[in-house]
């Protein structure tokens, strides 16, 4: 094999060489290339000598204090959620919701040491995460309502609903697995049923007949999943309200 040029050595150093194996084999057997590589690596090690000034553990708070007055006014989250939200608002793979971790008061892992007097409290984080699951349920509910209210005509295009269902399945799976892991049996059970219905929707043909649409509408109806999702949403909102109230009383 020919000698490696400087660019190839740089790629090797950063682990970005497509032909890494061949390059490494060559380096092992070529003193000249090895010497070049050591030279590059020594230079890059010098570059590491320049460090950025340290910022304290409360730097984020300081930045927030300077920033918050400059933020433009936005509509509340309720006003921002139209009946048929645009695609960006319904993206899949949304989140892991560590519901139980908050309900059980577990540690919210942060890269910096957590301050005891952190202004964004554990209650606020719980409220945010509960609200995130509530959003997911609301989006799922809207999709189910759309399906249930679709007129049974001869050829029904369900491509948008299918894509949405696929996105919601990913988030739902993460929420469900987390709920199972932390022992939230009730939540996990409803999410499991919801996931089955979402999968049914995701696997429908792009063009459905009236009969096929009727089938899926009856399945949604017979399982009572809409009702269960609504009830769970209400319960989560109560918990979110309680978390907000607790935060207000303890602040």
């Amino acid at each position: 094999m020919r000698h490696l040029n400087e660019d190839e050595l740089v790629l090797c150093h950063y682990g970005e060489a497509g032909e890494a194996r061949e390059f490494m084999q060559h380096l092992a057997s070529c003193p000249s290339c090895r010497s070049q590589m050591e030279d590059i690596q020594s230079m890059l090690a010098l570059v590491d000598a320049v460090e950025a000034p340290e910022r304290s553990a409360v730097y984020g708070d300081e930045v927030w204090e300077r920033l918050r007055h400059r933020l433009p006014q936005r509509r509340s989250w309720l006003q921002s959620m139209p009946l048929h939200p645009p695609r960006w608002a319904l993206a899949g793979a949304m989140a892991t919701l560590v519901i139980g971790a908050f309900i059980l008061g577990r540690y919210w892992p942060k890269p910096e040491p957590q301050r005891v007097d952190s202004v964004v409290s554990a209650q606020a984080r719980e409220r945010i995460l509960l609200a995130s699951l509530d959003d997911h349920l609301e989006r799922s509910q809207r999709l189910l309502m759309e399906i249930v209210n679709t007129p049974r005509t001869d050829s029904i295009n369900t491509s948008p609903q299918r894509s949405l269902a696929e996105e919601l399945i990913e988030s739902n799976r993460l929420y469900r697995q987390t709920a199972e892991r932390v022992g939230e049996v009730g939540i996990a059970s409803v999410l499991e049923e919801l996931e089955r219905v979402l999968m049914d929707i995701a696997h429908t043909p792009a063009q459905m007949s009236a009969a096929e649409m009727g089938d899926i509408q009856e399945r949604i109806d017979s399982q009572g999943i809409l009702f269960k999702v609504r009830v769970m949403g209400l319960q989560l909102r109560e918990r979110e309200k309680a978390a907000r109230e607790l935060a207000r009383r303890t602040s």
Partner: protein
Amino acid sequence: MYSMEEIDVAVISRARAGDNEAFRMIVERNSRSVFRLAFRMTGSEQDAEDVVQETLLKAYKRLQSFEARANFSTWLYRIAVNCALDLMRKRRRHEEHNETLQPDFESAIPDHSARVASADGMLFSVEVQKRVRDAMEILSPMERSAFVLRHYEGMSIEEIGQALGLRTSAAKHSIFRAVKKMRGALEPLMSSIR
């Protein structure tokens, strides 16, 4: 166990829905890393602080355009890099009409003045930092950005391309040019070490 990125997506979702407390969490989690990136790019502590503010303000205004499947850090870094590049371009235009401004890298150097005279090791360290600063100054803004993102932030070349709005091959060549220039600029120092 889910990654921090997955957990953060819940917070981002809430922030996009208008929850300012959730955005505050984004600010707290990302300020330090944005500052480090901004400092390495601009070489100035004050400029880096300005970049942090502008980056987070722009991120707030553009949250609706963030696609939840994308990588949030890459998206935020892209905004930070563009803010830093804008600032660096303004500084260069200002320098063309005024005296040359010296970058404020001195603030990054620990104050060894009390011991420099008696500690050759520390003197050398100060000299190394100065030479590296000077070497980075000869890079173009794009070369510097690509190099900083690869070397200090550990981003892949593909991610760097996304952050800088470049094709992967262009990002790669920016890094190559940066390393070549820095090798040339630091060769006298390297020779003294060998």
